[in-house]
């Protein structure tokens, strides 16, 4: 590793080398910080020449979604590759370098009247490349869907240092295979993202947030079901007890409405009527609470959490199974649920052994409900036979072939992703 650090320093100078701390009690890795595309290519070529294993990252905020790195010689971050390459408000598209911070990109397009999706938690600590590589969603997922649906094209550095592209910068384009979709959520195991183009959405004219509090989560989930039946188009609906404001009613259902002012006003009336006694925020206070709710997603660098996804129809049943399993371990049932999407984020504080046992038990209980559980969080070393993402399913062999074809020497992030990809 020392040799790798020295080689990188020769290549990039002292400013281009740092250290990546992998958490308490763990080693640090030398970190390459290329400041240009050319430098990044040189680092990847250096790795090819010296047979080094690389760990690609942005800020590293989501490294904890995968297994802890093993056998990595050098971390390489794209965070210094920042900037908007093209933003044409009339086209409604944005092309930016992978290291651009999400909050800066959102501010840049807001000036042109656009909303950047995904609106992820803690956008000041997340890069575009990191968000796409992790397949991360934001508070706006319910309305806009996953980011992979809006990535129009990408330029990437492949394992041998070659720069290739797929897709383009146009809102509609079926020219060649959609490799940029494959790269989304691949956690840096296929290539390093250099640049991506995204479709943008209109910035909402007005935002309102309707909150209904309840003593029990079941009441909040029932209210969420009633909201879904209204067939409105909220930006987000979430149920949580992470930011308790009233001890007698720790659970809150929040419906975030955003769009044209007249539409928001109309939806607000519908929602308030369906929820009965509800608190309503409008404009800036609503936007502030929206950001707070967005940032409730557990931070992998600090918290270990279970992330569960199922069909919306199975949500209540899945919640009960999770609540009971946590209750048996005397874990406080803290949760952030997105009922429309049918996802649950459950922070837990358990020893590695107890966590492994909980995961095994819950996966078995959730399987009949077609629910999937993954473990997110730093500091968790699950046993080798317990995959943080779930047991490999159909298509896994094909995934191995894709990885072998695109990174034949296992240059990138080897073995950290699902099933050891």
């Amino acid at each position, binding site marked *: 590793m020392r040799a790798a650090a020295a080689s990188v320093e020769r290549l990039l100078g002292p400013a281009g080398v740092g250290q990546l701390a992998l958490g308490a009690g763990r080693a640090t890795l030398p970190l390459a910080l290329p400041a240009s595309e050319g430098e990044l290519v040189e680092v990847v070529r250096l790795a090819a020449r010296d047979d080094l294993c690389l760990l690609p990252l942005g800020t590293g905020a989501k490294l904890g979604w995968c297994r802890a790195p093993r056998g990595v010689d050098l971390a390489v971050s794209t965070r210094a590759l920042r900037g908007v390459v093209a933003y*044409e408000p009339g086209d409604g598209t944005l092309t930016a370098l992978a290291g651009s911070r999400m909050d800066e990109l959102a501010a840049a397009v807001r000036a042109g009247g656009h909303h950047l999706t995904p609106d992820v938690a803690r956008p000041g600590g997340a890069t575009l490349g990191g968000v796409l590589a992790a397949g991360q969603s934001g508070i706006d997922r319910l309305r806009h869907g996953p980011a992979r649906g809006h990535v129009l094209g990408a330029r990437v550095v492949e394992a041998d240092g070659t720069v290739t592209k797929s897709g*383009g910068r146009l809102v509609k384009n*079926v020219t060649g*295979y*959609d*490799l940029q979709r494959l790269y989304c959520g691949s956690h840096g195991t296929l290539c390093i993202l250099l640049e991506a183009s995204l479709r943008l959405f209109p910035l909402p004219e007005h935002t309102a947030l309707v909150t209904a509090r309840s003593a029990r989560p079941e009441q909040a989930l029932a209210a969420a079901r009633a909201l879904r039946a209204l067939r409105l188009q909220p930006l987000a609906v979430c149920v949580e007890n992470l930011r308790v404001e009233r001890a007698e009613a720790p659970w809150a259902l929040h419906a975030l409405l955003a769009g044209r002012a007249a539409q928001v006003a109309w939806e607000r009336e519908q929602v308030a009527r369906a929820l009965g006694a509800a608190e309503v925020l409008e404009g800036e206070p609503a936007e502030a609470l929206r950001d707070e709710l967005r940032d409730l997603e557990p931070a992998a660098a600090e918290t270990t959490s279970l992330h569960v996804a199922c069909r919306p129809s199975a949500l209540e049943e899945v919640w009960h199974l999770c609540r009971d399993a946590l209750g048996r371990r005397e874990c406080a049932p803290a949760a952030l649920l997105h009922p429309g999407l049918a996802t649950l984020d459950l922070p837990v504080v358990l020893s590695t052994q107890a966590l492994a046992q909980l995961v095994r038990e819950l996966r078995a209980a959730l399987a009949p409900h077609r629910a999937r559980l993954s473990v997110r969080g730093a500091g968790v070393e699950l046993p080798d036979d317990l995959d943080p993402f779930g047991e490999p399913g159909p298509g896994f062999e094909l995934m191995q072939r*894709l990885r072998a074809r695109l990174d034949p020497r296992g240059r990138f992030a080897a073995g950290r992703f*699902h099933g050891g990809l």
Partner: protein
Amino acid sequence: MDARLIAELRSVVGAAGLVLDHVRRKPYEYDGLPFKKCAPALVVLPASTEEVARCMAILHRAGVPIVPRGAGTGLAGGATPVEGGAVVGTARMQRVLEVNVEDRFARVEAGLVNLDLSRACAAGGLFYAPDPSSQMACTIGGNVANNSGGPHCFKYGTTARHVLGLKIVTPEGDVLDLTEPEVDPLGYDLVGLFVGCEGMFGIATEVSARLMPLPEVTETLLAIFDSLDECCESVSEIIAARLEPSAIEILDKLTIRAVEASVYAAGYPAQAEAVMLLESEGSAVEVGANVADMVAILERRGVLEIRRARDEKQRKKLWAARKSAFGAMGRIAPDLYVADVVVPRTRLREIVMSATGICARRGLKLANVFHAGDGNLHPNISFDRRDAAEVENVLAAGREIMELCIAAGGSLSGEHGIGLEKREEMRLVFGDEDLATMLRVRASWDRAERMNPGKLIPVRTCMEIRTTAPAVAPAVAPGGTA
């Protein structure tokens, strides 16, 4: 074709599932691209995923190339057979397997006709958004292979955003069941990668399709202009104002005349130089606000007349004229070359004018129909395929328009795909190394490269041009591209 192979296939699909007869094989010789034609050695029409899998395994063992086919409505030659190959069609797989209203998805067989999916879920208050103009004939499986679009993709996105899961039969005949509509994929997004693969990765036999709540209100506007220029500028202004109509379509003068002379006449005035179809969907409040803003823009741009479709019957009539525009063109000339290019939306007007100039210089008749909101142009050039010189002239004009669009930051295809038609033009957009990566991804699915061979990737890109560790690293300027 080997008699033993045929007997084996017959034992799987029965006599009804095999098309061997020379005359009955004729319609399978081409798809919507009239220039390319090839007689398949045989056509197999399995009736279930299991039959597809068994047929694929048999054909794989025999080393027979396979061309998958839905309804054959594709316009880029993606379903054109190959010499000595088999066509595997999904025409006998049209069942709706499940409509899940609560979880808002449907599981259907790949051969289901697009429009039948929306019909099947309408009772549950839901619809399937992608609506290619051929939606009365094209299949969901074909839409998946081509990542098909349609007028309403302006608001809702193309097929890729509406496919939640797939059952895929691999080239070797294995079945990959990825039909569960997962929030996020486990591992790599194989479903997302498969959409738009143009039949080169395998055959999708089942599709889990996302359904959306039917809008409370749909309002359709027909805006009539005496200038195509102003019509295009209105579109740019509507997009710049971020008004989000669900569709914005433009038909030019020649198209209007053809439509009006046909059975689909919608009463468009003959003096119009261009008409724009605009649709807004949502709650009454939202639609009201959007329509008022759009009308203000149209009026500022000197619209001659705005008609509003107030009921479903009127709305359907306005759309029928648009959706049958290609068919109506038959009145102008026996054949129609439907080009499909896409440009940045800010450059719409300029490209339409230049394309018109290209055809005028070549003495060709150009009629424009386009998904203006997406920057997706369909310049339609009329010709007679019996006139070889004219065919050549049309193809050259098509290529010139394509080059023009690419120079303006556009691309080869907005929704029809590459197929055979634009295979060589892929080089205008992608370099050897980009194409080599696509080939490697393709080889991960289809090691023998027997699925729909010869499509999408230019013929000369047949070598692995890269090594994993170059001996000498070429010099790279700081900030430059390698």
